[in-house]
């Protein structure tokens, strides 16, 4: 009866017979909720941390990927230009070869003339030998 009367007045006793304004169940639920909330907040914090590192990693990967991409593009361009470079190099080499060929031709002509002269001189010597 007394409890009821107290309850009507909004007062309750808990197990430890301490006077309470809230009903013991509610109080219990509240404190449970509080616990739960705390857990939740903790979890959320953890989650955020995990997500943060994840983002960081992804970002790193992204820059890496970007770099690689640029590299790939560069390499592709380089590849393209190498063909051109080759061509110009080839052209240069060809010009040098033509030059050397001309040089060779000059030397060949000189050689020919020297050989001819040698044979003329040999003829001459032979002629001298024969006449004596």
């Amino acid at each position, binding site marked *: 009866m007394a409890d009821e009367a107290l309850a009507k007045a909004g007062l309750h006793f808990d197990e430890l017979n301490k006077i309470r304004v809230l009903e013991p169940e509610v109080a219990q639920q509240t404190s449970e909720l509080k616990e739960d909330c705390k857990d939740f907040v903790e979890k959320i914090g953890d989650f955020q941390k995990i997500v943060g590192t994840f983002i960081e990693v992804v970002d790193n990967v992204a820059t890496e990927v970007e770099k690689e991409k640029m590299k790939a593009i560069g390499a592709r361009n380089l590849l393209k230009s190498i063909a051109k470079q080759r061509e*110009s190099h080839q*052209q*240069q080499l060809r*010009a*040098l070869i033509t*030059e050397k060929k*001309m040089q060779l*031709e*000059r*030397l*060949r*002509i*000189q050689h*020919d*003339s*020297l050989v001819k*002269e040698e044979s*003329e*001189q040999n003829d*001459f010597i032979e002629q001298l030998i024969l*006449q004596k």
Partner: protein
Amino acid sequence: MTLPKDCFPTGMHWFPKTSTGGGAKKSASDVFVLTSTDGKFRLISRTGRIEKTVEAHKGAVLCGQWSPDGTALVTAGEDGQVKIWSRSGMLRSTLTQNSLPVYSVSWGPDADQVLFTNGKQLVLKPLQANAKPTMWKGSDGIILVVDWNPVNNLIISAGEDCRYRVWDTYGRMIYNSAAHDYPITSASWTPDGEMFAVGSFNTLRLCDRSGWSYALEKPNTGSIFSLAWSSDGTQVAGASGNGQVLIANVIERRLEWKNFEATVNASKQIIVKNVMNDTLEKLDFRDRIVKVSLSFNHLVVATSSQCYVYSSRNWNTPMIFDLKEGSVTLIKQAEKHFVMVDGGGVYVYSYDGRLVCSPRYQGMKADILNTQTISISNDTIAIRDKTDEKLIYVFDAQTGKIMGDGKPISHKLEVMEVALDQCGPTGERRLAIIDKNRDLHMTSVRVFGAERKSVKLGPMIHSMAWNDETNMLAGMTDGKILVWYYPNTVYVDKDLLTSTQYHRDSAEFGKSPQLLAFVGNHLILRRSEGSLVSTSISPYIAVLHDYVNGSRWEDAVRLCRFVKDDSLWSCLAAMAAYSKDLNTAEVAYAAIKEVNKVQFIMNIKDIPVKEARNAEMALLCGNPLDAEAILLQAGLIFRAIMLNIQLYNWDRALELAVKHKTHVDTVMGYRLKYLDRFDKKENNKRYLQYKDGIEVDWEKIESKIEMEYQKERERPSGGGSTTASSTNSRPTPSSRPTASQRS
């Protein structure tokens, strides 16, 4: 130094170092002209101070160049004008006005003409206001660059048709290159005019003066926009499109002489190879090698500070001496010494490194001498004057003094090339000259008393060379190689000239080969595309020369009999006649079937007096004036008079007779005979004048003549064969083949 912000330079040119005007070498040489896109040119001193800024053209100034003597500056601009400025930057004249930009301009050798580009045309314009310009089409594309060398007087042009061309000043094309891959953006002559460099995109080419290419280099520099040579012609600097300045050294110059081959294989190293035994000698130098010459058993190397003289017997210990000025432009060798030319003068050194002399004349410009305009032999140096190209100064190589009366040899026409023979006695030194018409003349260097005579040897001679061991002369004409086995023949017997000449078709050596040297029995030629070829002549000629120089006439005759060659006999005839060796001359003339000359020589042999014989020899050589001079000198008045009578030189005969008061009647008698024979009347005033006073009595004349011959026989100086019959010794006109030339 920094330039103003709106100034973008297009070109620069240093004031010429050796400006003859003024004499005092003040800071005048320390200025350069800088042309820029803002239409101005600036004169900037060595310290970097802008001395003057001149508003010159509308639009950019594309090119500016000092005249070779430093008195004027020419600029060309995008507005198509070519302007001449004074040394201090005052406008003197506007030379021309074109509708197209003038990309390049170049001075002529004497600073009296300017060459500039006008689109596809090259224009050569004298500075005089009314003079007509010479124009010719120089390219299929726009011409970007021209350069005119003062030493060899050749022009190079190059441009957007990717070719470079070499021209002479008449606008004749000497060389046209193959098309390059890119337009040619620069071209520049070496100071000595032996080579030029051509620059294009990633391309640097070194070419010979005749156009063919020595070497090609493909530096990774972009287009080479400008090229400039060092004053010694061994290094070239180029301004390239990617902002770099490239500097190139000329290496791999190769010289050959007999069994030696010298190659400059680095800028400070020469390798000498002896082909006979394949030995290699490596010669290292402290400084850059500037000039190398290999001849007459000696290798002369001029570096930028010293001169090294090596003997081919000893490559280890050269003679070394210091040079006053670094830039040696020319070395020419003779057997005993060599001549070295630098900007300051001409110096003769002996092979042991001693300065023998340094020849000099008023107004000499040593820096533009080249192999064609200077020649050296063991005792003589000949230099063609630049201001008056008809003059040739001849110096004694021992003293450096101008020979004779101090006057230069004067030729009829402008002289293009001079060459001295290398052998024989000093008194008989001969100078071969090629003049503007490409005629080859020969003259003696030392003349005593008599007037200098120059004899024409041949027309259209492109190049010539004396032999280094004997006095043979070789020349190139159109499609033919000519060798004069004995050029003295022209002084002896012109009829023999063609038979002592050696012809050879030069078709096997390609189009217009160039004669480089005549060493021993070998002629060394350069084909127009650059290859060296050699060909030989008969070795007997040299042997014959050798015998004759040693007066071994019997050996010479024996040699000719062995070879049985008419040209050899002709040479011997000319040589013997020149040396007045009558017996040999008789044999030689007989061998080439010149009966009249044999007979004439036989007559000469019968003359008792030596001088008279000499005079008759002079007649045989076609020199009646000399003959007369010899006779008069010896006091043989009668013979001199008879000589003139027989030449039908009546005036002179009478003059001599009257002057010496003898034989006037003899002259009159012969004159009457002559008039009778040709059925003519006396119309000569002087004869008419003397006719009355003198009686012609043939008996008296005959006896007088007989007396003269008697007197001759009794002369103590006779010293020779005297014959019994004097009538035989009397020369008759019929036996005088050369006399007819005069009459």
